[in-house]
């Protein structure tokens, strides 16, 4: 049986707005195994972002346990949480959140800034990661000189900088056009296949979600439905539509020409 990287046990998160209490998450149980590519879907206000924040140690659950890599992070004080965020989690945001005054490579180096890596090690690693996301040669560009899709690739490279146990992506395709959407999701899928990176992606785009291996439908703070995605068959290098053999880098099935 695969080992769980991330597990929640009866997690609840309540927000207080004035006198009203809003139950964003209620007794949510979730397990993400190592090497999985999971999509969390749901309508607005279903608690997707809250869940991702709780999973990413950006927010604390009102109740329940969040076990990340064997550690209950819900119990940890803020003083220790930053190290978890730095070393175990990679974040990808809808709006990329690159620092505008830093170049692409400097943005990728940023998470390594507070680690023990030397300057040259950091630079080397950042260069490698930018190559991995297909941005070799654009290291010196500032975010405003990159397209939206390229910016998100830089953000993905940044998320990978400290070799996290899990990548949490919050609507990573939300600000992108159709072409770039598929580019990014394929990039994530390939990362998952090639490097075995565990990815949890929040999205409300069902088209995108089907490219993962497991889709969780979140409603009123609970997981209502679970569905298999196409990614599972892709992992076996088979076209999910016609079953013919495909390559990892293929954009479309060579046989049925469907978008992979």
């Amino acid at each position: 049986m695969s080992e769980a990287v991330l597990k929640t046990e009866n997690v609840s998160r309540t927000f207080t707005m004035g006198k009203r209490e809003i139950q964003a998450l209620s007794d949510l149980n979730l397990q993400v195994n190592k090497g999985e590519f999971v999509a969390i879907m749901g309508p607005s206000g279903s608690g997707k972002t809250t869940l991702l924040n709780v999973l990413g140690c950006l927010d604390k659950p009102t109740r329940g346990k969040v076990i990340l890599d064997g550690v209950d992070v819900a119990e940890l004080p803020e003083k220790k949480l930053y190290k978890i965020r730095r070393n175990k989690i990679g974040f990808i945001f809808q709006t990329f959140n690159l620092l505008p005054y830093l170049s692409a490579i400097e943005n990728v180096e940023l998470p390594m800034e507070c680690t023990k890596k030397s300057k040259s090690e950091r630079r080397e690693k950042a260069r490698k990661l930018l190559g991995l996301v297909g941005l070799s040669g654009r290291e010196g560009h500032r975010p405003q000189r990159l397209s939206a899709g390229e910016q998100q690739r830089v953000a993905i490279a940044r998320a990978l900088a400290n070799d996290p146990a899990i990548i949490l992506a919050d609507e990573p395709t939300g600000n992108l056009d159709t072409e770039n959407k598929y580019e990014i999701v394929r990039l994530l899928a390939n990362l998952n296949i090639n490097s075995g990176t565990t990815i949890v992606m929040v999205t409300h785009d069902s088209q995108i979600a089907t490219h993962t291996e497991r889709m969780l439908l979140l409603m009123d703070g609970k997981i209502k439905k679970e569905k298999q995605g196409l990614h599972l068959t892709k992992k076996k290098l088979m076209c999910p539509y016609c079953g013919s053999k495909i390559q990892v880098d293929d954009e479309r099935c060579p046989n049925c020409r469907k978008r992979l």
Partner: protein
Amino acid sequence: MAIMVSIPAGIVANQESTQRLTENFNSTISNMQEEINKTATLIECRTSSGQGMSFGTPSGTPGDRPSFGSRQEVFVSETVGDEIGSIEGVKDVVPFLEKSSNETTSETMNTPRGSFTISRPLYTITGVCLNSSFIDNYSILPTNITGGRKLREGDSGVLLMSSNLTIYFGVGVGGKVWINGESFVVVGIYEPANQSRMETRGEVYMNISDAQTVTGQTGNVSRFDVYAEDVSDVDGITNVIEAAYSELYVTTYKDRLQSVQSMQERYTQTLSSAESTLSQTQTVATQEIILAVVATSLIVLFVMLYTVRERTKEIGTLKAIGFSNWNVMSQFMLEGIMLNLVAGIVGIAIGSIGAPILSGLLLPSMNLFGQSGSFRADSQFANSGVFGLGAATATPDLQTMLLALGAAILLGALGSLYPAWRASRTRPAEAMRYE
């Protein structure tokens, strides 16, 4: 920062000039008092009041009429000196012969009443009794020798010349000049103490017997410096001289003291007003510096608060990718310090270049030197150094600059402390929502 650099510089400059002024006052007054004490026993007896100044006649009028406005040069027999010397209490009588030169300079003045030609004697011939005990004990000869030597006992056929005459005669030390047909060798040149415009007339000093010969006043003198045995004798001697010789104008140390005292009063007044201005200035300056410090801190505070607010999302991102509270706080502190450091360097540059102007603008004007004009009237002391002061020049020193730079860093840290702390406290989940 410019304020912080230029104000102290301005204050220091003002303090320095006031101090210089005070020192000059004190040394001048003590010099004068010393001078008065030295000459306390001196009774000056002149044959005429004041120094000679001949005005010319309206052009075209015959020259034999007594010159209009002119002072007749009067002489008395030198035997009068012997008579004065026999008065009880008189220690020494030093005779002088002062006579205007025959050579004159003239200049024409245009007035509504017509044009006047003013002719002035070119120089004064002063004959001095070159008795070595007189020369040693009394200041009877110019002391400010710039070339050659002083006159001494036994000198004859030689003279001491004021520097402004060397050009006219075209000679230097050792040169030969002709005065009223007699030739003299210049043995020394001195710088006249008196620089007032009306009295730029040159002077030559020579043995009194030479002077009598050359001026045709054999046996005559124009002035006696009478020295009493003791200060207490001065009044008595003065009374006797005034009663016996109505043609002599007598002045004593008391008259001179009076003029010095009135001068001292003016000095003191000016000094105290300068000091009060300075202390006012310092108060104002302190207020201005405090204001500048407070303003700087507040500006940094607001700028950094604004920055933190503007960059909430960035802070959220930094925290999400693993920056600790301390990382974030130090980041923003550093930014605040850098901001102020750059401002500080720019300010110091402005301050150094513009300190004189800025301190002048920021500080109330110091009216120390406006009054020095009144001292000029006391031409006797015109070159005593009091008036050699220029305006206060404010040049900030290195210490002030380093201090300002340190203050810049400190204020940057102080002003950004709270914003940085707030930034570090930002909850990432909330910060991410912030647009």
